[in-house]
């Protein structure tokens, strides 16, 4: 009996990690990444506003802004992953909705590099805040792939809606959408400053 207990104790204290699988959490990682950008309204409105603004500005901004945003957003995410947290994240995200929404509302036409700079600066905040929220057990790489794809599809949605810019009624509708995004940004800002996060 004593021997059995000793054997049992030995087995319990010296377990060998099973390495039968080289990977894990693929489906969870990809699905979480895909879902994450659309689960936060602040992220959704800003992404769509980038697409809308690009569509209003026309070539080459219509593709340059959606190219700029994911790359700079990923840079912000990378900074977050290595432990560099940007100050005033929620304020920055709220400001992105206000500025981008206002730009759409006003049909602002700055030079291309200014538009890319504005989008790029705000993209860093979005990446820093959202790109690092990996659920436990999920595959990090597939989470990132899902995250980038979802962000790109939100831009595409904005560009698709921006097609309405060709018609006078559509232009007015887009400006109204921009105003809505900016107003949502004001609400986010209120929550960030007063209510503890949007």
């Amino acid at each position: 009996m004593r021997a059995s207990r000793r054997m049992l104790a030995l087995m319990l204290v010296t377990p060998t990690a099973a390495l039968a699988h080289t990977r894990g959490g693929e489906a969870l990682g990809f699905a979480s990444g895909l879902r994450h950008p659309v689960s936060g309204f602040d992220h959704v409105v800003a992404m769509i506003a980038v697409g809308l603004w690009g569509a209003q500005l026309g070539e080459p901004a219509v593709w340059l802004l959606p190219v700029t945003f994911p790359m700079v957003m990923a840079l912000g995410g990378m900074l977050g992953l290595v432990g560099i947290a940007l100050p005033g994240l929620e304020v920055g995200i709220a400001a992105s909705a206000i500025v981008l929404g206002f730009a759409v509302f006003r049909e602002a036409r700055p030079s291309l590099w200014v538009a890319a700079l504005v989008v790029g600066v705000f993209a860093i905040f979005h990446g820093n805040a959202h790109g690092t929220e990996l659920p436990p057990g999920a595959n990090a790489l597939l989470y990132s792939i899902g995250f980038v794809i979802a962000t790109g599809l939100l831009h595409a949605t904005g560009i698709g809606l921006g097609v309405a810019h060709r018609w006078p009624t559509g232009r007015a509708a887009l400006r109204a959408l921009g105003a809505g995004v900016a107003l949502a940004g004001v609400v986010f800002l209120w929550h960030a400053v007063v209510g503890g996060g949007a």
Partner: protein
Amino acid sequence: MTRVGRGALVALTTIVVAARPADAHLMTTGFGPFYDGLTHLLVSPEYLLPMLALALLAGLHGPRVGRAVLFALPAAWLAGNALGLLVVPRLTMPLPTATVTIAVGGMVAAGRRLPLALITGFAIAVGVLAGVLNGVELATARSSQLAAAGAAAALFVVVSLVTGQVASVRAAWARIAVQVAGSWIAAVGLFMLGWALRGR
């Protein structure tokens, strides 16, 4: 418990506690090592993404560059694979893979014309690097050399399909879509770099 029973228990316990970790299979299809290697590339985004980006880059530069990369990349992969199996004992994968993914994705996104020699040379360098990393994985998993051939075959098919498709594109919007895909790959590469530096 009898002496025989105690002895059996000790023997069993010794086997259990002294067991080595199960050797990981890179991918098990049930069709043998060639198909395991073939599938391994297709389900490993860390390998597939830079290769896809290279195929997009080659396709954007037309059939001549596409043909050069189509043959240079799998050949370089096989050479690197042999190097990984024979020479290099251990290599960590995430940092070089992430760096290459950012670089090639960024080149696609930028959409600049590059000389044939530069793209082919870059494809060879990337192919050797990825092949070495794959070879180390194969050696670690004690997988058959056929798996390397399977991976190279998959690479050839992927590059030929993607490069051929992109090279035949004429519409401006379609070329822009390819550049956008490049920017997405570069963005994923940046995240890969972050995860690698974080140690995940």
